[in-house]
């Protein structure tokens, strides 16, 4: 069965382009130009993966991710945005998106990212990996949840390689681990990013004028 993909973007031309690029490999079940339609239709259609734009009128992608997440937590979101601003990236990930790629991504890479998200994996672009490393850099674990508060050495290694522009396959080879292990590391970084409520992340955000 083909992966069911739903597209949300207020930029119609871009939407048409993505639809054309993905329609061969995936079943595009629908698309929306605005937040309200998107939430309603996604709840009804229950797609596997939603490609979501970050900047839209009426609250943007975060509202859709949160709104659908309340009722249909099994729907997975991949944020696709022209913005690589830290506040957008971190905001979408914290809202529950499983990945974040910028719109400059190559079509083949985008298809690959959708497949990866559908398989339950997380997708980190080089820039996102950089943001995460930056956010977690040089902090001491708090007593509440020391595990959540820092990245393991291995996770940092994986993120650094992604930030250096390597694909998962190359990361696996460089570290002499399997692709599955790379995926596990990336997923656990995503989980930490979504669950952690470290003050440092907030401070990091405010230092960069995010909040």
């Amino acid at each position, binding site marked *: 069965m083909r992966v069911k993909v739903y597209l949300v973007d207020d930029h119609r031309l871009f939407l048409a382009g993505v639809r054309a690029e993905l329609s061969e490999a995936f079943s595009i079940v629908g698309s929306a130009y605005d937040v309200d339609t998107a939430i309603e239709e996604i709840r009804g259609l229950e797609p596997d993966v939603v490609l979501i734009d970050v900047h839209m009128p009426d609250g943007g992608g975060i509202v859709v991710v949160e709104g659908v997440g309340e009722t249909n937590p099994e729907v997975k979101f991949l944020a696709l945005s022209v913005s690589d601003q830290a506040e957008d990236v971190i905001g979408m990930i914290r809202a529950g998106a499983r990945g974040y790629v910028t719109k*400059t991504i190559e079509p083949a890479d985008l298809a690959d990212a959708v497949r990866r998200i559908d398989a339950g994996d997380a997708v980190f672009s080089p820039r996102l990996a*950089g943001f995460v*490393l*930056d956010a977690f850099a040089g902090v001491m674990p708090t007593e509440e949840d020391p595990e959540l508060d820092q990245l393991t050495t291995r996770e940092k290694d994986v993120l650094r390689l992604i*930030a250096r*522009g*390597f694909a998962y396959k190359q990361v696996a080879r460089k570290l002499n681990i399997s692709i599955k292990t790379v995926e596990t590391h990336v997923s656990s970084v995503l989980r930490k990013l979504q669950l952690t409520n470290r003050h440092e992340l907030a401070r990091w955000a405010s230092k960069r004028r995010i909040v």
Partner: protein
Amino acid sequence: MSLIEVEAGGGDHLIVNRIGQLRFRRRGRDRILAGVAGGLADTLGVSDAFVRAAFVTLGMVWGLGVLVYLAMWLMALDRVEDTQPEPVATHQAVGLGLAFAGSLLFLGALGWWPSNALVITVGALSFGTAALTDRNMPGPLAALVDPSVDRPGRLRMLVGVALLIGGLAVFSSSVGPISGIGPVVLAVALTGFGILVAFGPWVTRLAQDLSTERRERIRQEERAEMAAHLHDSVLQTLALIQRSDDPARMSILARHQESELRDWLYGNAPIDGSDLLSTALKASARRIEADHQVPIDVVVVGDHPLNEDTRALLGAASEAMVNASKHSGAERISLYFEAEDNELVVYVTDQGKGFEPAGVAGDRRGIAESIKGRVERAGGAADIDSEPGEGTEVVLRMPVAAG
């Protein structure tokens, strides 16, 4: 008198009509006590200043105004809502006014008030003030010369001033002698009051106009600055793109413009960031991208001040980026910089054709020299990791004092 009665009848009819569709509500905004007068003004479609004046005047008739006010308050105890008032037509407003005057005269004929002087004084003063304190009027004296004020507006001013003077005259002739205040003191007080009423609204409005104007000017300036910037950058780039027929060149121009616009919009580029390694690396990558038309993805983690040693790192990194752009054939290049606790690391990575490091030809020794030599002289280390067909990665390390 008959005229007044006819008009008053019309006014009553009007009121009955209005009461028929009357859903009286107290007003939430712009209220002084409970919003009763404001609500009534909205329902009738007249200025709330007049309704307040009517209540005050009626208040002089053994407190009738207060009673009516309380009654209406009770009536609309749980109804507070702001409605858009429909302004009543001029003749209807006059009718309403005459109806009010008629009922006052009727009360007076019955002898239902304590003192003619009190009711007339207060009535004239409150209505006079009401006529002069319209929110949309600049003030009585200014209004007489202001060409933007229409005729009814001016008439209203004149009536207001006349009522004020009349009221003050009655007040000074009846109260003055009783209370024994000296006529000079009274005259001074009255003149001061008159000036306040005449010019007060005008002065406040002038001040408001001034601050509005200043805000507007600041907005205009901001808009002009934005327009100038967009013209210098975005429009020029779009023009260049339209003239260009080389897709790679177009893409570079667009990327270049995108990152510049982004920096400008979000204030990404720190104003004093020119002495930071991260800013310098980004700037260098952007320059090389523009020169060689190969996109460079820059990811920066942490930062470090720019000094002699880190300048060497910057120079070597730039050299590595230029090499990758010129020789690797890769579609894009990655620059990754991380400031760790005790060292700075720069990776310049491409997925291009790679080369055999051992077999570097003589003419490419310059590369090794300019990259390796530069970093090593500054106390760092450079590794070039490449295999034919597997891309190239240049790793530059520079130790720094912890902290």
